[in-house]
């Protein structure tokens, strides 16, 4: 056993029994959530597991006498960074789950070997060191007048160069994100005048029937009913209609067949002589950065009609 001598001989903050319980309970949660980050197939589950890890680590910071870092951890990581992750996940596509097929042969095995080679010596090395009771920050905090004044004094006086460099780094990161996220608009923005003219010249000048009109529910996936009781295809959201028919449980049986038959096949559109492709306004496409060439599916993907 190696005993590392600490600066002060008298321990001022012994580790209590409550902290031991909290460590083992929360440590189990953290390790399980971290494994969930790595091994869950869907990226959104990984992000949510990451939130569990972040908040648990914030509690650990609180236990370890770092109240400022606890708050910063929650605000910066769970508040900002993780929401950014979720935002990008929504843009990139939530549904795309990772394929778990190995592309490099023996990659998992090698990874496991490397991980064990890293973890086992490190953990055994760490556990042979006993430091005794921690010194604790109570004396320094009392001298500096609080945890935050102490950190502020160190940051402003001793680490002022690093602090300035941090400011430069943040400005550079903001500029880089702006440059990288910016896309040039490839087609002209359609104004309200353009849209209204298109609507008047098209064959359906009035607003389309909303979902669920005259039906029992008014949720977005319920088609509206025509006066004769048949289903109006015009009222269906094209995004929902394009999905797998088995997914739409509340859509009537005959309607699913109609959606599968393609545009123009429905009873209502046959009557009014219109398909939904005409005049589909492009509200979300250009903002999401879809390029010009990908066909009518993108332009059709509007939820606002």
């Amino acid at each position, binding site marked *: 056993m190696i005993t590392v001598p600490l600066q002060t001989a008298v321990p001022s903050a012994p580790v209590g029994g409550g902290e031991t319980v909290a*460590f083992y309970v929360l440590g189990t949660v953290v*390790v399980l959530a971290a494994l969930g*980050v790595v091994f869950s197939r869907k990226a959104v589950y990984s992000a949510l597991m990451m939130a569990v890890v972040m908040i648990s680590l914030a509690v650990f910071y609180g236990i*370890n006498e770092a109240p400022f870092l606890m708050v910063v951890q929650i605000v910066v990581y769970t508040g900002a960074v993780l929401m950014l992750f979720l935002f990008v996940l929504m843009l990139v596509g939530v549904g795309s789950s990772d394929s778990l097929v190995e592309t490099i042969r023996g*990659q998992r095995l090698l990874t496991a070997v490397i991980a064990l080679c890293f973890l086992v010596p490190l953990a055994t090395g760490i*556990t042979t060191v006993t430091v005794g009771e*921690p010194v604790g920050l109570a004396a320094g905090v009392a001298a500096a007048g609080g945890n935050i004044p102490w950190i502020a004094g160190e940051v402003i006086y001793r680490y002022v160069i690093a602090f300035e460099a*941090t400011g430069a780094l943040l400005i550079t990161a903001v500029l880089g994100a702006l440059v990288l996220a910016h896309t040039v608009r490839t087609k002209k923005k359609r104004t309200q005048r353009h849209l209204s003219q298109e609507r008047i010249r098209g064959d359906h000048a009035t607003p389309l029937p909303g979902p669920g009109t005259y039906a029992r529910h008014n949720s977005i996936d319920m088609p509206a009913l025509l006066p004769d009781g048949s289903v109006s295809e015009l009222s269906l959201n094209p995004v929902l209609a394009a999905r797998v028919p088995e997914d739409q449980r509340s859509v009537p049986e005959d309607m699913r067949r109609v959606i599968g038959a393609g545009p123009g096949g429905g009873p209502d559109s046959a009557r009014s002589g219109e398909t939904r492709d005409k005049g589909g306004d492009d509200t979300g496409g250009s903002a999401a950065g879809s390029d010009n060439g990908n066909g009518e599916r993108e332009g059709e993907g509007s939820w606002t009609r």
Partner: protein
Amino acid sequence: MDPMNYIVLAAVLFTIGAVGVLVRRNAIIVFMCVELMLNACNLAFVAFARMHGGIEGQVIAFFVMVVAAAEVVVGLAIIMQIFRTRRSASVDDASLLKN
């Protein structure tokens, strides 16, 4: 409880993050695992600060958080850009310089 247990926990979390970086191919999940490794280091810094009665560990953990935030902003912007041009967030697909 020995306070070195926190360091062991940090080592475990770092290893899990490293495994994720090596195994996963979704760029966003790889990024999350990098964040996990940074957080493990932060936990070690904070635990050392308490063990030795100094504030330097917390100050360095604070700087690590700032750098991690900046890194996430730029990295996610790059992932978005790659996704726009190649319609994929997999790190295996970005192999334009190969051959």
